[in-house]
């Protein structure tokens, strides 16, 4: 797996994973990306082309166990031949200070298109995975990941 760009987000304070004993932190001075900004970013990547999610399998938790290290994995259905392969996969999050989480670049020689990494999520938000196929089309899948203060279960 060749990872040309792996850009961890959240250089600032993120939700430290707290119990009820310590309340959630405030982010009043931090500007967050929002759904609109992420939509614009996806438009940049895809030049406005609509993508579907039929070839993308996403592995994300419903509720993050640790907002500082949330596992995200994808598996994209592609023959990965010279004529038909995945060129790149972008991961974006719409509730972090900066929406870009990671970009993975692929070549046909890799034989398969899957990868996993850990990301930091500051709060409950949508995570988008955009796949750029070699024929110029795109795939697009997303899921909501909840980040909670926890405690009290049982």
């Amino acid at each position, binding site marked *: 797996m060749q990872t040309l760009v792996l850009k961890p987000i959240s250089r600032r304070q993120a939700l430290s994973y707290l119990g009820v004993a310590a309340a959630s932190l405030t982010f009043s001075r931090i500007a967050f990306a929002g759904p609109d900004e992420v939509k614009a970013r996806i438009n940049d990547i895809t030049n406005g082309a609509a993508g579907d999610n039929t070839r993308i399998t996403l592995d994300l938790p*419903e509720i993050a166990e640790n907002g500082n290290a949330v596992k995200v994995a994808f598996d994209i259905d592609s023959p990965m031949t010279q004529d038909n392969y995945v060129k790149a996969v972008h991961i974006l999050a719409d509730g972090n200070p900066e929406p870009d989480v990671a970009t993975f670049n692929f070549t046909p020689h890799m034989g398969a298109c899957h990868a996993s990494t850990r990301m930091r999520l500051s709060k409950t938000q949508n995570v988008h995975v955009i796949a750029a196929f070699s024929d110029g089309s795109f795939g697009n899948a997303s899921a909501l990941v909840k980040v909670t203060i926890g405690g*009290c279960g049982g």
Partner: protein
Amino acid sequence: MRSRREFLQFAAVSAGVFAAYPSFVTAAARQKLTQDDLLSFDAKGQVTLLHLTDIHGQLKPVYFRPPSENYGVGNFEGIPPHLVGANFLRHFGIEPGSALAYAHTMVDYESLARSYGRLGGLDRTATLIKAIRAERGDGNVLLLDGGDTWQGSYTSLKTQGADMVSAMKLLKPDAMVGHWEFTFGKDRVEELIEEMGYPFLGGNVFDTEWDEQVFESTAFFERGGVNVAVIGQHFPYTPIANPRHMVEGWSFGIRPDKIQANVDAAREAGAEIIVLLSHNGFDVDQKIAATVTGIDVILTGHTHDAIPQAIRINDTLLLSSGSHGKYLGRIDLKVEAGRVVDAASTVIPVFSDVITPDAEMAAHIDALRAPYEAECNRVIGTAGALLYRRGNFNGSWDDVICDAIRQERDVDIALSPGFRWGTTLLAGQPITIDDMYTQTSMNYPAVYRMEFTGKQLKDILEDVCDNLFNPDPFFQQGGDMVRVGGMRYRCAPKASMGSRISDMVLTRTGAPIEAEKSYMVGGWASVNPDTKGPAIYDLLENYITAKGVVTPTNSQSVTVVGMD
């Protein structure tokens, strides 16, 4: 996800099944009830599954008042298990005042409790299990433990789960799964699994470094000539609902794709019956039943719901066998040509006064408790009112705990977690150490004292409320609402996150709680590893001892809006 209409149809269909209750259901008084009545059952097929779950350390019979509030939202509104009181009785066709009415609802609870007595006790359960094994033949019965077994009593805390492991071993279960077990820490869990001698199954726990499965997911059993696969599912939100540091390096999660893969693999390996032994909770497992194919039976736990028989969702039977040892779940299955063709189920209430205790188990429990018996029975006060915990919002035991925290830690506002475990005391009963630990027995008991702003308090209430009332059960953690003392608020379960909580008022002054203002708050069971403060059971003992007769001061702290 199936539509509300479809769910309502399930509910209606399941209600129709309840035509043939055993005779004890209509018995209006205890003297009419017998052990044989409890065991009477129209047996079916070759295989019997027995299900115990959420015993929470209760070796002895208990009072456990069923909830007055158990709201469902979205697809789950108004269907089992989200029915209480008269609605529950009507839905299941149960006679008010009958044994089954007492076992399953809080209608006329105190007076029926005085008539029917306590339920549970592992020695009584042992009698029932032995009788069913004798009736069906040992080789036809599987006994499965749904977890939350090791934690919840004075002796379970003092022995760090060893008492329960030792007593359960006598029942010879075939497999178990876990949740509060993990709050004894990874090392202790591994030690006790060694001790058990039967599988601790769970296909949904992976180590975070290599993403490798920590426990076996599946065990295969030959019962009545049928190949039965049991797939385990530990409580998916253990590292969130409980301290993550206690399971550092292990990742949980619902992982429905993994369940599907394990089901398919078990079928491939020749399983004719597939059982999911689950600690997901009732609504999560309703969604699993509707979305994962090929499961014959889900034995669910965690949410402590008890309904009289299994419900059917598509081709899956879902049975929920209550909590605290009050019930023993049973499903009989008839298999032909590798498929389940017929089934019958019941949840047997373990009426302790009419079941002869199993001598071997009774002696074993006595021996386990002997070193602690004097302390367990030490009386520290008297219940001035009915004291219970279970319910979506405040219960009277937690009102007492909040009173104790406010007084002993000198704070304006107290928070007590929405645990579903904890037994009941009738008004006038003595409060023993045993009783007090059924509310507080745990490994992270520190009572913190710190300043929160009004906004932080609201954020906490909103967050916990979403974990209870998110319309998608996969986003619920399964606890009830955090209990409050010293303040009151309105709650709209059907609203969206961030707008469910309103009108927060400080009870002492009657003034609204202001977002920017700071308030001194005390609470316990924080998942933060650095929490400092006295243990809740020590604080509560001091408070009860000083009070003598304990009556909660406030039970009007939450006004629920928008629900029928």
